[in-house]
């Protein structure tokens, strides 16, 4: 994975390099073309000048028309030469080409203009040449300067590109940060992110309206749970009060009292089922606050103290080993208490006398784990698979009916981003481990 700004800067760099390479590849050719054209123009100008001189002064100052000796002149560095000679060449010549000349035993490449002209009925060949050495020199110089210059420009633009993309991507970073920081849609910071990039503004807008819609859905869900809880719990409430009043009247015989108590128990199961479902709905629609900071060790010690009488009565050893503590923040303590209480009390119920329940706090690299292991009946793979589902009853595991406690524990764990792992061997025991995120 690469960051967007790095990607953009890399792409810019590569495309610049590619274009420059292409440019540098054709550069010598282009320079040569330009130079040759320049030289050719010069040569033509010189030709006109020479023709002008001949028509003004005649041919005699250059060459004797009667002799066969030709005229030739070059400057001391042999950069240029001019020659004029009689010719019997049948056609007319007016062309420029490259050819080598030997001047004073030195072979030099020249750009040469060949031109035939008639003076007093005699055909002459005029040649004007310019050495190519200087052109090649110029080509090399220009190439070198350009090379350095372009290299510098690429370097500078790469750095500025990097800075600029970083700068224009700031709003995107802000949006990402805002999103990762919130725990529920209602906590989303609704102030628009400052940007003049349309794309970011519309992303921000879309996110804000998404948060609004989710928040609205949560609010509706909350309303529904409130309504359901009212509708379901009111009749339970009426029945319960009626039965309790019957039980309290003094002239009720033992048998009737027993039956009323049984009815109350059944009613209580209904009540706790409704409450459990509502609790899950409330957790899932984030109706609980997460504002507590507390020591996990102390919470577990509290649970052990709470359940010790029950464990002792069953002759089950319930012990805690704390290698380390975790101060857990942004959490709902009563919910976390319920979660562990549930698991530990389940373990107490399912461990035969003489067994052991061990609670350990284990520090790990990236998390903090609470491991609850028992020497109880254990579960097979099928039971494990349905362990956290709401109504799949786990055969022979839970005589108390609603095994919804584990589903609640799971939703509390999810709510706090705690990972639950369960290992179990039928006949030898179960191990629950809770991996807390390290938030402090």
């Amino acid at each position, binding site marked *: 994975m690469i960051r967007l700004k790095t990607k953009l800067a890399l792409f810019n760099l590569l495309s610049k390099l590619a274009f420059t390479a292409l440019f540098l590849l054709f550069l010598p050719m282009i320079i040569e073309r330009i130079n040759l054209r320049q030289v050719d123009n010069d040569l033509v100008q010189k030709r006109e000048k020479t023709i002008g001189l001949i028509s003004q002064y005649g041919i005699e100052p250059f060459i004797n028309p009667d002799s066969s000796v030709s005229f030739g002149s070059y400057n001391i560095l042999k950069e240029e030469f001019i020659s004029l000679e009689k010719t019997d060449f049948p056609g007319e010549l007016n062309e420029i080409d490259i050819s080598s000349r030997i001047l004073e035993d030195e072979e030099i490449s020249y750009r040469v203009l060949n031109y035939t002209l008639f003076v007093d009925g005699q055909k002459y060949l005029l040649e004007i040449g310019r050495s190519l050495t200087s052109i090649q020199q110029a080509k090399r110089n220009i190439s070198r300067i350009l090379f350095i210059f372009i290299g510098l420009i690429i370097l500078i633009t790469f750095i500025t590109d990097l800075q600029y993309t970083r700068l224009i991507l700031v709003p995107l970073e802000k949006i990402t940060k805002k999103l990762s920081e919130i725990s529920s849609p209602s906590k989303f910071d609704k102030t628009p992110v400052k940007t003049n990039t349309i794309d970011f503004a519309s992303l921000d807008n879309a996110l804000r309206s998404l948060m609004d819609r989710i928040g609205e859905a949560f609010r509706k869900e*909350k309303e529904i749970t*409130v309504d359901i*809880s*009212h509708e379901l*719990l*009111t009749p*339970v*409430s*009426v029945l*319960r*009060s*009626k039965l*309790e*009043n019957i*039980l*309290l009247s003094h002239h009720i015989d*033992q048998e009737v*009292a*027993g039956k*009323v*108590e*049984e009815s*109350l*128990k059944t*009613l*209580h199961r209904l*009540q*706790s089922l409704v*409450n*459990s479902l*509502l*609790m899950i709905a409330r957790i899932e629609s984030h*109706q*609980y*606050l997460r504002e507590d900071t507390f020591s996990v060790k102390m919470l577990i010690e509290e649970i052990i103290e*709470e359940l010790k*009488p*029950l464990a002792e*009565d069953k002759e089950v050893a319930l012990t805690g080993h704390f290698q380390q503590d975790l101060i857990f923040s942004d959490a709902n303590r*009563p919910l976390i*208490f*319920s979660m562990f*209480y*549930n698991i530990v*009390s389940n373990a107490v*119920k399912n461990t035969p006398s003489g067994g052991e329940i061990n609670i350990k706090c284990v520090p790990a690299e990236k998390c903090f784990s609470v491991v609850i292991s028992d020497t109880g009946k254990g579960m097979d793979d099928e039971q494990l698979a349905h362990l956290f589902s709401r109504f799949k009853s786990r055969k022979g595991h839970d005589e*108390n009916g*609603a095994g*919804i*406690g584990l589903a*609640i524990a799971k939703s509390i764990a999810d709510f706090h981003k705690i990972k639950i792992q369960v290992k179990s061997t039928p006949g030898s025991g179960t191990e629950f481990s809770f991996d807390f995120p390290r938030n402090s």
Partner: protein
Amino acid sequence: MNVLIVEDEPGLAKEIASFLKSENFLCDLAYTGNEASEKIAVNLYDFVLLDLGLPDYNGLDLIKEAHKAGSEASFIIITARGAVEDKVKGLDLGADDYLAKPFALVELLSRINAVARRKFNIKSQDVKLGDFVMDIQSRMLTFNGDPVDLTKKEFDLLLYLVLNRDKVLTRQQLYEHIWGNILDDQYDSNFIDVHIKNLRRKLNSHAPSPWLETVRGVGYKVTAE
């Protein structure tokens, strides 16, 4: 004491009234918010049991109104809405307690009594239980002047039975009172039995405790002398 029961569910209102009457309270009923508002304006009540889910009224407004009118009634909110904010808001507005439906009638009674003790600054009397004496004020149980070593939960359990003397309390009522609603699912009748067993063992090491009775098939009861 005068109690106004504001509850739109007549079945429940009548049961609460019949229970409180048997406990020597004077009860008045209001099935709607308007009715309640009028009754609070005209009569003097010591307690108002207020259901928040009234069809015509936001129950919380009734508390505000009553306080404005200078009523000295203590409000106990009873609601099935179960939203956490309602509880916080209600207590902020000056309600004295909050009870989620469905609740045990004995629990309602003990809440009312607790508020009454605070309100009228009543000092609880020591209670004699056979050769034992329970000092409610300092939370001590003594036998011939020697303290009996009870855990907090054991004391709470005994205290609740003592405060509801001569009434049979079911295991569920005891559990709810002491453990609140940690998570209803954990309700385990065995839990109370274990604590009673431990409690009895501690008592019996000093003297027999026939006043702590097991009512077969129903629950437990403390009989007064």
